């Protein structure tokens, strides 16, 4: 199927793609229903709500209840996509997701927008930096973190086909789209964006383009970095990671998430037994987020191109 509404080179947020893909799924599959918790404009589930008002349920500001209702709907054969901010639909309702969705392996898809530090001005209470960690620890749960709107669109469409619970980590912030319609999202597979033998950069989500740009500039300075985009965090592409570890000996992980429990930890777990190499984890250190414009915060936490270049150089010199 090819109704890709996002064009390479244009700007969009992954939440926009979620909204458009959800609408497309609604058109194709009558068993798809959508739920939100008073944030349908922000999560973009409103696209679905407008066309399918009878299959859309606004739960009000009640995320725990939304998770439980989704579980019940799924147990009766519906495929619920429930949406809110990542903070409130991985954190607020964590235990409902754990015990009512993941444990019974119910077919609920979680669209978690506004993840990470790029929530920006709202500040720490809204900047979810632990959702990858919370969700990937749950048996039966799949965790997907797309790097741009085109990849997100493909991933949401793919999530429908995946049996069981799926967590989709999405951003508020718009970025340049680097994938086109020929790209195929595959659960459990990473994407090599650039080859190189000195080290491997493994990135997920919003910092992926900056990671690639940093690597391209480092190339001119004599550092040949391989770059892997890892949209599928659980299951992760263990084979690709072990190969990279063995061939390049060093790995840098990059994510818009606390450096504990997220992609960095998942990479360490994937390679530690078969190919233990030196790994540097970039992300948000052990502090809460703070208010500020998204781009400034990315710079502050070293997740923009310059910050990544500096960290990679320091790592190569250490």
């Amino acid at each position, binding site marked *: 199927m090819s109704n890709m509404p996002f064009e390479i080179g244009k700007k969009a947020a992954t939440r926009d793609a979620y909204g458009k893909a959800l609408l497309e799924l609604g058109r194709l599959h009558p068993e798809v229903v959508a739920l939100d918790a008073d944030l349908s404009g922000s999560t973009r589930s409103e696209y679905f709500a407008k066309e399918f008002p009878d299959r859309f349920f606004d739960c009000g500001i009640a995320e*725990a209840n939304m998770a439980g209702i989704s579980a019940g709907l799924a147990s009766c054969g519906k495929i619920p996509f429930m949406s809110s901010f990542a903070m409130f639909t991985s954190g607020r309702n964590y235990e409902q997701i754990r015990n009512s969705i993941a444990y019974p392996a119910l077919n609920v898809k979680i669209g978690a927008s506004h993840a990470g530090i790029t929530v*920006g001005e709202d500040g720490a209470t809204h900047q979810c930096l632990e959702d990858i960690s919370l969700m990937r620890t749950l048996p039966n749960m799949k965790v997907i973190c797309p790097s741009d709107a085109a990849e997100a669109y493909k991933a949401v469409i793919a999530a429908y086909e995946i049996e069981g619970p799926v967590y989709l980590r999405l951003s508020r912030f718009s970025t340049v789209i680097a994938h086109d319609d020929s790209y195929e999202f595959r659960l459990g597979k990473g994407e090599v964006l650039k080859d190189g033998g000195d080290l491997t950069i493994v990135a997920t989500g919003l910092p992926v383009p900056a990671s690639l740009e940093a690597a391209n500039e480092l190339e001119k300075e004599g550092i040949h970095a391989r770059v892997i985009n890892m949209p599928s965090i659980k299951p992760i592409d263990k084979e690709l990671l072990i190969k990279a570890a063995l061939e390049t000996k060093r790995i840098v992980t990059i994510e818009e998430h606390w450096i504990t429990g997220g992609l960095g930890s998942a990479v360490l777990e994937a390679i530690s037994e078969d190919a233990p190499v030196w790994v540097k984890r970039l992300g948000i250190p052990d502090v809460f987020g703070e208010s500020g414009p998204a781009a400034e915060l990315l710079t502050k936490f070293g997740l923009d191109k310059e910050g990544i270049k500096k960290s990679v150089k320091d790592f190569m010199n250490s």
Partner: protein
Amino acid sequence: MENIELQRIANKIRKGIIISTFHAKSGHPGGSLSATEIFTYLFFEEMKVDPKNPHDPDRDRFVLSKGHCAPGYYAALALKGFFPFSDLEQLRHTDFYLQGHPDMKMVPGVDMSSGSLGQGVSAAVGMALAGRLDKKDYRVYALLGDGEIEEGQVWEAAMFAGARKLDNLTLIIDNNNLQIDGAIGDVCSPYPIDKKFEAFNFHTINIDGNDYDEIRAAMKEARETKGMPTVIIAKTIKGLGVSFMENEVGWHGKATNEEEYKIAMDELEKAGEALE
């Protein structure tokens, strides 16, 4: 304080809300404006708080459970003297202390961090409980949104407060009738609000929440009510004071652009002059 004086302060708070969100290019003016009379009355008439001694253990406590209305809260704190009013221009800026949602570690005068709806009210219950344990006579106030009360935690807190007869606790519901996705009655109706709290063993008072005489009478009644907590259901107008924001759901969480800013400030300037 005379109502006219309170009205002058409220006018300044409203300007603070527009100024701070304009410079932040984000933030929540609608629910800050609907609650302006409540902020004004609490900080300038009702509560015992001292900006020179913000951690006084005997002070009254306030929790902004609907933490997104920090612009109104901060403007009131600034006017009260907790920090300079001009700091509001740097709301939500990187490396500045005025966080987007109330932060008790960074912002002087803030008694509890909040921003995740439904949680502040439980903390207020805890403060009231501590006051009783310590045999202190401070009172605890919490301001909630009418959309916020859709959170189950609000009712867990209410059940506890009612069961424990916490009469040192006053909850205020800012009943502006709007949340983000629309009118609260359309999204997932929490009505009837008063009957629900009544069933949770609260003394309930319904008022016009933008009217000082009614706020004054309700606060007095709450103070005098013994043996149960009080909830004041304050009917308000979201966006009140800025014509194009009034009752407009779209002004929940959006800042003015240059042009809108000028119109809003002009209206508030004129409203302020009329009070002189």
